[in-house]
């Protein structure tokens, strides 16, 4: 058998899952879709002594109608919601277009049929799409333990390579994705060698226009060019007050790729190539997001 032996629990309620987590702490590894964890166990890179399978807890699979007062309106997604369900969900398509656009880039259909929204975020792979989307939108993460619960801002959730600020006794139970706002355009784009592979470069871009069609606010967050989702704040700042035109987009791409990011490179792309791709994708994403902002 490929994985090392482990003890297995499949609680059917949140309370019993949280109880198990309280008892076992870091030794009790949550099993979500298993699409990252089980490959790691097959290689024996991961050898958890106890698995807490979350698949039989129906409360963790939900997508709610947007709620919250203006400005704070969000779609709440249960952590065990399948990537393939979220991909087809009409509420997400309508209210969180950036997430809707990003999901089909995650792996292949067979993997999205098991992989979950919460599992991908808790895994915190810098090459993953969802952490980038969550950081760009300022999503909020609900962490629960048997004793308490708290909400974590995206910027405080990711803590480096495959690391988050979830505590040993906590489970990620829900994520609140802010809904789209007026005069704002969103775009997710990436380049992979083959559809479904981890991307060599990619980003989420958000552009908000003011009454004179100048850029009022911008956000640019990149994948696979650092130890987590990389927020290119200098590049985004360079856009403020400018007309949304090619020259400004090009300059933002230059700043993002040369100053904001520190790509490691990988077997498919050198760091220089990742910078090049990121710069080109920035221009395209900003052009698309601007078009969409004008229509919004």
């Amino acid at each position, binding site marked *: 058998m490929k994985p090392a032996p482990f003890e*297995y629990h499949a609680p059917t309620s949140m309370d019993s899952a949280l109880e198990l987590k309280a008892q076992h702490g870091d030794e009790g590894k949550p099993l979500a879709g*298993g699409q990252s964890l*089980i490959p790691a*166990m097959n290689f024996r890179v991961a050898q958890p002594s106890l698995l807490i*399978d979350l698949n039989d807890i129906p409360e963790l699979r939900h997508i709610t109608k947007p709620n919250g007062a203006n400005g704070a309106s969000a779609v709440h997604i249960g952590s065990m919601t399948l990537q393939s369900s979220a991909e087809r969900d009409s509420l997400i398509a309508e209210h969180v277009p950036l997430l809707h656009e990003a999901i089909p880039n995650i792996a292949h*259909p067979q993997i999205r049929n098991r992989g979950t929204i919460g599992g991908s975020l808790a895994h915190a792979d810098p090459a993953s799409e969802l952490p980038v989307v969550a950081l760009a939108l300022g999503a909020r993460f609900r962490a629960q333990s048997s004793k308490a619960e708290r909400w974590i801002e995206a910027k405080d959730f990711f803590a480096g390579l495959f690391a988050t600020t979830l505590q040993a006794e906590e489970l990620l139970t829900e994520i609140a994705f802010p809904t789209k706002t007026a005069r704002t355009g969103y775009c997710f784009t990436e380049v992979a060698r083959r559809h479904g592979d981890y991307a060599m470069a990619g980003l989420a871009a958000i552009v908000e226009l003011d009454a004179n069609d100048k850029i009022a606010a911008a956000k640019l967050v990149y994948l696979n060019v650092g130890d987590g989702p990389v927020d290119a704040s200098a590049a985004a700042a360079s856009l403020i007050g400018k007309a949304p035109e090619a020259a400004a987009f090009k300059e933002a791409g230059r700043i993002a790729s040369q100053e904001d990011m520190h790509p490691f490179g990988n077997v498919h792309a050198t760091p220089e190539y990742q910078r090049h791709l990121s710069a080109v994708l920035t221009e395209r994403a900003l052009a698309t997001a601007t078009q969409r902002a004008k229509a919004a």
Partner: protein
Amino acid sequence: MSNSYPVTVTINGKTIEKQVEPRMLLADFIRHEAGLTGTHVGCEHGVCGACTVLFDGKPVRSCIMLAVQANGHELTTVEGLAESEDKLHPIQNAFWEAHGLQCGFCTPGILMTLVPFLEENKNPNEAEVREAISGNLCRCTGYQHIVDATLLAAKKLNEVAE
């Protein structure tokens, strides 16, 4: 820690019950416990698609799922496609006619990916077919004949439906 759990699954309409260790992968359960060796294992870490089966009707990788997770669920493997030994599924016939396979190692996974794809997409174009099989590796064909076979399969399925 050699704990074992009862697993009851329905595979291709037949219910089987076994006692297994939780670390047994679903792919190994299908092959060694159920004796259905049509489901192939290539990479055993989710990359090649050879082990694709239908789990409650949806294609999944059986090498990165635990057998215990299939308890109470329904599986379809490649053995469940043909009506009988001499009456193949229209997709299998199309693969035969259009040379959609050479060594055949990838074929079960590709068929189990395409069955639900063609149910949802009655008239796919070539690009859509290529995207549908993007999660399945084939070391022999260069994919062109697989794509041709899939387009032929779509036609055959539409004829059957008429």
